[in-house]
């Protein structure tokens, strides 16, 4: 492996150099003609020219013709970031008839013209990095992108509306879908709602048909009460181990007749019903809500006396004529192979107790918005009657916006949906109780289709809208008509004075935030998160549903607060991206993997534990290390660790990088 480029294979190195104006983006701050003229003087450079738009068809054709005309065997393009157009120029190089990896890009826009303010030094820097590339490209070798088959199956994590929509879209294209949901049923947060804004469609009417479609769909394997235990592999070939938590019910036998619930030893509920936000109780054997999919009961190990304390008459067992109850069930696992994964794990609402001055958890009549969703819905604990915990119907209700949001002490971001759902709740409460409704807001954010009209409708219904963030909800009454009420202290900024408004009921419009285990999920799937903790998309505009990990897509509020219309649209997009991957049938793997040169390898095993993907094994017969190209992800950590320099990483070989450094620093 001599350093002399000429002897690298027989043919002499002939380089074509193209520097792009990019309109004025580059030419505005870098003298591109000067760079082209300078590079022409460098050894092995046969063609050196500048062009207005290298990434245009005309620009690419320039490369193709010059390769043919001047028998070029190396191409260097100085333009924008390789992360943007490396693929474009490699394709053009291939069309010219030479191996695409003989093309190398130099970033003189994002790292050059856009970030410098002085033409001379920017041009000097452009020349240096161009010179580096010229030095480097001599050592490039022909490489082939490895094609890997894509498993025609998708795993969707999370069974909320995002997961449901993505699963259905993919399943309808004939592909296999594994929908993994942590709770006992799919439906997510949307299942709690009575109506949805702005059209006041009943949430159940638009959600339950989709849920039953998922339940019945031949292509969807639905696993509820399940989590992802472990994931290995890479795009097109993910191996996922799914853990099924014991339901103590034999799923295939249970028909959802619910007799076991009636015969449970507990005559009425003995533990908080999470679905009803704790407003009512449920038994240890339960079904979250009547339209649950799958319509299978589950036994809560903490609430069931037999499971928790080991002694109970177990009156439930004989009541089930399908004898589907099985207390001996243990955790089971399933190992599946999928080509793509869609993460749709959703969000958590802000814990209102973190704003003590609003008195949630202290004053009985302070509710969170989710609790009120359960109060207004007819299938809720109060059959839709909005009543306080002491049975009274409220005559005045205060809805507090931005609870936990737009606040440096809790969540800095606006949660985007609270203004709209507060309007919806105001309408529903008014409809059920005809009470005086007050909404306290900082900015009324109603940007969607039909949103502003919905706000207008609420105004015309005679609800009070007070612009001012509520400072405190207190029961320290100061006048007769404040006794027995919750007093809201606020400055009505539009009217220009402070107000004390006594109400019977306070509703806190809590914002959206990442789930507690977002960090664990993030680390398991190797995706990064933004500063707030939501999962980070590859690019907010150019790739909003994909992540930096190929084959892994995002949908719904796990990527950031959003309402149902945006969530469904994003779920469709994620499904489309996954299907594109599977329809292509194969995926091209970047060739930057590493190889061991057996002659140099001393078998010292330093590299073995370097590899996080255990792609390096040891051939005991020859006493040398061996790298499995399928598992190698091309990070190059082992290359730098090898004491005898026996490992090389394609496209990032030591000699290429040494040459690049040497040329960058070489004087003109």
């Amino acid at each position, binding site marked *: 492996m001599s350093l002399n480029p000429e002897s690298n294979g027989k043919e002499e190195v002939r380089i074509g150099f193209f520097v792009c104006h990019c309109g004025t983006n580059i030419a505005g701050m870098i003298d591109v003609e000067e760079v082209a003229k300078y590079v022409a003087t460098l050894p092995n450079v046969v063609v050196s020219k500048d062009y207005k738009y290298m990434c245009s068809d005309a620009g690419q054709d320039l490369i193709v013709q010059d390769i043919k005309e001047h028998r070029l065997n190396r191409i260097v393009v100085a333009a924008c970031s390789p992360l943007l157009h490396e693929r474009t120029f490699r394709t053009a190089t291939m069309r010219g008839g030479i191996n695409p990896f003989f093309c190398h890009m130099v970033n003189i826009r994002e790292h050059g013209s856009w970030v410098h303010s002085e033409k001379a030094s920017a041009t000097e820097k452009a020349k240096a990095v161009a010179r580096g590339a010229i030095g480097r490209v001599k050592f490039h070798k022909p490489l082939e992108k490895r094609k890997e088959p894509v498993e025609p199956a998708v795993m969707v994590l999370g069974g909320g509306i995002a997961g449901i929509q993505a699963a259905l879209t993919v399943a309808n294209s004939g592909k296999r879908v594994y929908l993994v949901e942590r709770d006992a049923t799919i439906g997510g947060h949307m299942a709690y709602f009575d109506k949805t804004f702005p059209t006041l469609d009943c949430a159940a009417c638009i959600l339950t048909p989709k849920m039953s479609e998922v339940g019945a769909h031949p292509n969807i394997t639905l696993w509820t009460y399940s989590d992802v235990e472990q994931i290995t592999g890479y795009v097109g070939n993910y191996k996922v181990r799914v853990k099924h938590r014991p339901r103590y019910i034999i799923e295939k036998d249970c028909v959802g007749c619910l007799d076991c619930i009636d015969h449970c030893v507990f005559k009425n509920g003995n533990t908080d019903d999470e679905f009803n936000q704790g407003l009512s109780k449920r038994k240890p054997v339960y079904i979250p809500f009547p339209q649950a999919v799958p319509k299978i009961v589950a036994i809560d190990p903490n609430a069931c006396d037999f499971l928790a304390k080991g002694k109970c008459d177990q009156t439930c067992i004989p009541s089930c004529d399908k004898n589907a109850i099985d207390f001996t069930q243990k955790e089971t696992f399933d190992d599946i192979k999928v080509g793509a994964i869609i993460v749709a794990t959703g969000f958590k609402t802000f814990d209102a107790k973190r704003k003590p*001055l609003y008195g949630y958890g202290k004053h009985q009549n302070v509710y969170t918005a989710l609790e009120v969703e359960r109060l207004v819905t007819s299938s809720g604990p109060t059959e839709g009657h909005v009543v306080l915990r002491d049975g009274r119907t409220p005559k005045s209700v205060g809805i507090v916006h*931005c609870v936990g949001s*737009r*606040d*440096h*002490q809790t969540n800095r971001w606006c949660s985007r949906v609270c203004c709209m759902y507060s309007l919806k709740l105001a309408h529903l409460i008014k409809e059920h109780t005809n009470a005086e409704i007050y909404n306290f807001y*900082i*900015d009324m954010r109603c940007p969607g289709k039909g949103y502003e009209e919905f706000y207008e409708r609420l105004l015309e219904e005679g609800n009070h809208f007070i*612009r*001012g*963030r*509520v*400072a*405190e909800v207190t029961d320290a009454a100061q006048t007769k008509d404040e006794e027995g009420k919750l007093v809201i*202290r*606020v*400055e009505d*900024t539009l009217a*220009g*004075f*402070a107000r004390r408004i006594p109400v019977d009921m306070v509703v806190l419009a809590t914002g959206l935030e990442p789930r507690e285990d977002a960090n664990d999920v993030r680390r398991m799937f190797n995706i990064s998160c933004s500063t707030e903790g939501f999962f980070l998309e590859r690019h907010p505009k150019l790739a909003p549903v994909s992540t930096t990990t190929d084959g892994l897509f995002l949908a719904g509020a796990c990527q950031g607060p959003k309402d149902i219309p945006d969530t469904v649209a994003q779920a469709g997009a994620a499904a489309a991206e996954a299907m594109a991957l599977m329809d292509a049938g194969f995926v091209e793997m970047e060739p930057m993997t590493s190889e061991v040169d057996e002659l140099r390898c001393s078998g010292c095993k330093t590299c073995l534990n370097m590899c996080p993907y255990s792609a390096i094994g040891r051939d005991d017969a020859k006493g040398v290390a061996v790298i499995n190209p399928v598992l190698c992800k091309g990070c190059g950590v082992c290359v730098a660790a090898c004491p005898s320099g026996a490992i090389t990483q394609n496209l990032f070989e030591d000699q290429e990088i040494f040459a690049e450094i040497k040329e960058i620093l070489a004087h003109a």
Partner: protein
Amino acid sequence: MNAIQREIRYESDRDPAFADAIRKMPGCEAIDRCIQCATCSGICPVASYMDITPRRIIELTRSGFKDDVLKSNTIWICASCYACQVECPKEIGISDVMMALKTKAIAEGTYPKGMPIPILAQEFHDMVSQTGRVSESKLVQKLYLKTNPFKMFGLRRLGMKLMKTGRMSLKGESMKRPESLQRMLQAARIKK
């Protein structure tokens, strides 16, 4: 009937130097982050007695409407209880801004006529700079002599109670060596 007057402000009425001066005072750096949400006015125990609410004071200050701010009684009614600063969702040092405005008003003598608090502050400052201690009764006497002597008469009921319970001493309090305090204060003063 309120007199009909035209109320419009021109950019020339703004004094950006005033706004910048306040921004440089300790704790007042973040006033530009304010979204006028009014949590400060809502939580303030005395906002309802102020002619300009704390929220509007922040807006007027950062825009540089110096006269409106320094003529208002807001900064004097503010009792520095820090409730607004603690609750502000944008973590703006609102109490520090009120304190900075007090300092500016006292320094420039631009406070509403008859407002006792700046006079109390000055008297307090002078007494402590001299003796190193505060003698409550002497301070109250000095304040009322400067503001309205007749009201002193109203204090006799309170004075009697304090005398009866031994909580009123007419003796002037002082440090043993106040001159050491004065030397320190002199050395700490900004070298002009």
